[in-house]
């Protein structure tokens, strides 16, 4: 039993390191080749876990091999347009200037129900408002609305707005992120004042605090359990 536990930990670490080195965080962003690798890795790596009589190498070598192949394929995809279209395919224009391209729908086996579902996920209920819709190689649908249907922007209303500042997390679950504090040009004394002004006694009392360079603060106290 101890051996099974140790083998499980080794395989688990091998998969985590491999997936991390592959560099993708969300399943939805994987290209087809990467998705295959992700699925295969988990299945192959589990073989030695299911059978203690199978050497660990029978799980580790396939994982390492798949990882290396994925790195090389990704390099090919990055450097060659032809190779990229061969491996990943090309995006398909599903709606072109307001008209549904039925040939592309059939080619991608994309049904009207699926189209409506993907549009609803983007809060688009009326298909007539969509000028362009592209089915990407990873299966997601990108949409561009007609200008008159798109949300109004300050630029369209000729309004001048303040430049957006990037908010950074300063306190994460009671821990101060010093490098973020420095990034907005502040120090711990300033942070201490802000935290006390919000009613907390110490940094450990804070669940999350964010701020930007204009001192716009988001603050949440830690709940007492």
């Amino acid at each position, binding site marked *: 039993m101890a051996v099974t536990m140790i083998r499980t930990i080794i395989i688990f670490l091998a998969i985590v390191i491999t997936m991390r*080195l592959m560099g993708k965080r969300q399943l939805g962003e994987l290209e087809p080749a990467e998705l295959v690798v992700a699925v295969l890795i988990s299945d192959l790596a589990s073989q030695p876990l299911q059978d*203690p*009589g*199978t*050497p*660990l*190498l*029978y799980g580790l*070598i396939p994982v*390492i*091999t798949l*990882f*290396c*192949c994925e*790195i*090389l394929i990704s*390099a090919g995809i990055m450097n060659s347009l032809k190779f990229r279209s061969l491996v990943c395919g090309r995006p398909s224009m599903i709606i072109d200037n307001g008209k549904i391209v039925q040939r592309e729908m059939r080619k991608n086996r994309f049904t009207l129900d699926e189209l409506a579902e993907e549009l609803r996920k983007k809060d688009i209920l009326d298909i007539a408002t969509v000028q362009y819709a592209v089915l990407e190689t990873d299966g997601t649908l990108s949409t561009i609305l007609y200008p008159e249907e798109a949300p109004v922007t300050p630029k369209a209303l000729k309004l001048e707005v303040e430049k957006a500042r990037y908010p950074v997390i300063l306190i994460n679950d009671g821990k101060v992120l010093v490098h973020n504090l420095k990034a907005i040009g502040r120090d711990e004394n300033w942070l201490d004042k802000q935290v006390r002004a919000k009613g907390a006694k110490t940094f450990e009392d804070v669940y999350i605090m964010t701020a930007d360079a204009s001192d716009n603060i988001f603050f949440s106290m830690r709940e007492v359990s």
Partner: protein
Amino acid sequence: MVKEVLAALLLIVLLIAAIFNIGIVNNLTDEITKTVEQAVAAAESGNWNGAIESAEKAVSLWKSKDSYTHIVLRHSQIDTVSGALYDFLLEAYDQNAERLSAAAEAAMYHLDSVAQMERVRFGSVF
């Protein structure tokens, strides 16, 4: 670029290690097979002491690579070969020529099977 070069190098290293493994497993099985054949030849000429010595040497050779074989071979394969070699050794102790010959065939078959599985052939790939 560094990642890609390292990935390619790692694949090459794995391939070289696999080729070395084929060599090691083949050498081991060939050596044990020869020792088994020597034992059978000794038994056929009436030299049972020589046959027993060769049979013991065959078992000892297999056991000496135990750490390595447990890393690269399925344990069920290892158990099968070990069982066949010990059966062969028992027949040598019993000094039964016919059964010794049959046990030798079985042991050599299993040894060859192990070697074949490691070799890159159409049959082993598919």
